[in-house]
């Protein structure tokens, strides 16, 4: 039998490429927030995952309220309508954390590691607030049309035996991510405020000598990072489901993405998101059926042909993190050293 390329490609598309793109977009948005906070405030904010959970929790609660009122967006999820509220809530939480915790350590010029430890405290507080309000359980808040193309429709359309399903939330995730990233880069490259943020990140002392107001730069950074966190979290929750613990776990792949790309480099965070997401998926995917389409029957593997069980998917981020820190600590885009 000849290799069956169309079926193999569709199979991989369905299980790796499509979910990978959505996951990569979610990680990239999260990593962008981490990298911006690091660039401006010069510490690794470990509370970012739980800030994401906090924003998403607000999106879930507001979605439920909107659903109760009968408000919706038709085929699109109601969560999209709740997103602005989630963004406001996450920004308020980040600004409050800065005012109550981080600002003090900045004023006394603490070492970065002290700020990192303070962010662990903020992480636990946000963590507690989220569990207190919505509980630790899985919450589903996705509604609207679930699929753009169902596997069955795809099979009928193409006459292939393998199906390719594309979920509305996957498409939405990628579309929203593209718009948000484009807006962010326009802001950083073209606007006065965006340039002043880059200047502050580049050379704090010189930025002060130029009359750039550090308090304003810091506040805007928190608002942007929190907005990105709320957007990434809500998209992730719509795509999968919302469970506070999962968001805490996302911290590792998001940090891996930020560091692979070069921390402090927005472009690197996006590249890093893709690298981490696709590494995770390609390493944990079972290739048995894929090889069945490509190899002669006699060579077909008897096992699952899976390199790593999905239970160990976080190990992938961890390995990437360790390798990058060992061999190219500045990351792909020459960011700062942690």
């Amino acid at each position, binding site marked *: 039998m000849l290799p069956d390329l169309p079926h193999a490609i569709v199979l991989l598309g369905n299980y790796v490429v499509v979910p990978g793109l959505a996951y990569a977009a979610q990680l990239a948005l999260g990593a962008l927030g981490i990298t911006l906070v690091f660039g401006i405030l010069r510490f690794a904010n470990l509370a970012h995952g739980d800030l994401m959970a906090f924003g998403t929790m607000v999106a879930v609660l507001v979605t439920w309220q909107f659903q109760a009122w009968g408000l919706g967006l038709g085929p699109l999820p109601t969560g999209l309508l709740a997103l602005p509220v989630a963004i406001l809530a996450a920004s308020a939480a980040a600004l409050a954390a800065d005012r109550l915790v981080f600002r003090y350590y900045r004023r006394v010029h603490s070492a970065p590691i002290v700020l990192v430890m303070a962010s662990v405290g903020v992480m636990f507080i946000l963590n507690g607030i989220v569990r207190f309000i919505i509980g630790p359980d899985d919450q589903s808040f996705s509604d609207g049309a679930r699929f753009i193309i169902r596997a069955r429709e795809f099979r009928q359309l193409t006459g292939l035996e393998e199906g390719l399903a594309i979920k509305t939330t996957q498409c939405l995730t990628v579309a929203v991510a593209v718009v948000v990233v484009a807006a962010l880069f326009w802001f950083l490259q073209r606007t006065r405020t965006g*340039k002043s943020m880059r*200047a502050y990140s*580049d*050379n704090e*002392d010189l930025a*002060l*000598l130029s*009359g750039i107001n550090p308090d304003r730069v810091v506040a805007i950074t928190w608002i942007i990072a929190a907005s990105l966190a709320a957007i990434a979290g809500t998209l992730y929750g719509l795509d999968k489901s919302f469970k506070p613990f999962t968001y805490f776990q996302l911290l590792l792949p998001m940090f891996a993405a930020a560091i692979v790309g070069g921390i402090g480099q927005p472009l690197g965070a996006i590249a890093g998101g893709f690298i981490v997401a696709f590494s995770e998926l390609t390493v944990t995917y079972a290739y048995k059926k894929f090889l069945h389409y490509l190899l002669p029957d006699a060579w077909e593997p008897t096992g699952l042909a899976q390199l790593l069980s999905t239970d160990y998917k976080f190990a992938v981020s961890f390995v990437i993190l360790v390798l990058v820190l060992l061999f190219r600590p500045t990351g792909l885009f020459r960011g700062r050293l942690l």
Partner: protein
Amino acid sequence: MSFLEARNMTGGYGGADILNGCTISVDRGEIAVIVGPNGAGKSTAMKAVFGMLQLRTGSVRLAGTDITRLSPQDRVHRGMAFVPQTSNVFVTMTVQENLEMGAFLRRDDISGTMERVFALFPVLRDKRQQPAGELSGGQRQQVAIGRALMTEPVLLMLDEPTAGVSPMVMDDLFARMIEIRREGIAILMAEQNARQALGIADTGYVLVTGENRYTDTGAALLADPDVRRAFLGG
């Protein structure tokens, strides 16, 4: 009374005083140069004038107003500009963006000022879209001075602007200072290359252990046998 008057400054970074009654003044359209051996407190004096150092005693007056208690940012508002010795450009930003950041406080049209900077340093016009970190040492210094000029300052302060550049670049930078002086700007700089710097100085201050040792016109200091022997290598 001079345009800038820093009188009797004493102070340091917490420990022992580095400045011990140092006095410096400069008028508009003049170049004043602070020279002296390593550790004499040249850079510290510059920082003190700019408010980056808490003074124990003494005062700084600009255009007759006491600014001793003002923060560096507030001094920028008053028309002072400072070019630090190191890390004086935004390396990841383009030349043009560096100049734009220099003018951050201004809300009016800055294109005229940018044109004047480009006229002063023509090479920057060609490199305007290049990140400042990719430029040569001399060109970086030009960006750093250009950035400081973007606020249209009345007093330009430079901390060892020729440190680490070639003699040719140094001559060129000093020639530009003379051009800037012609615009009626007061220039105060600390310099390690004492002989060349005193050559363009209207006033020279020889600082030793944070005190004024000799103060005179640049030419007079260059001619003084004691100064030559002790500080200019004969």
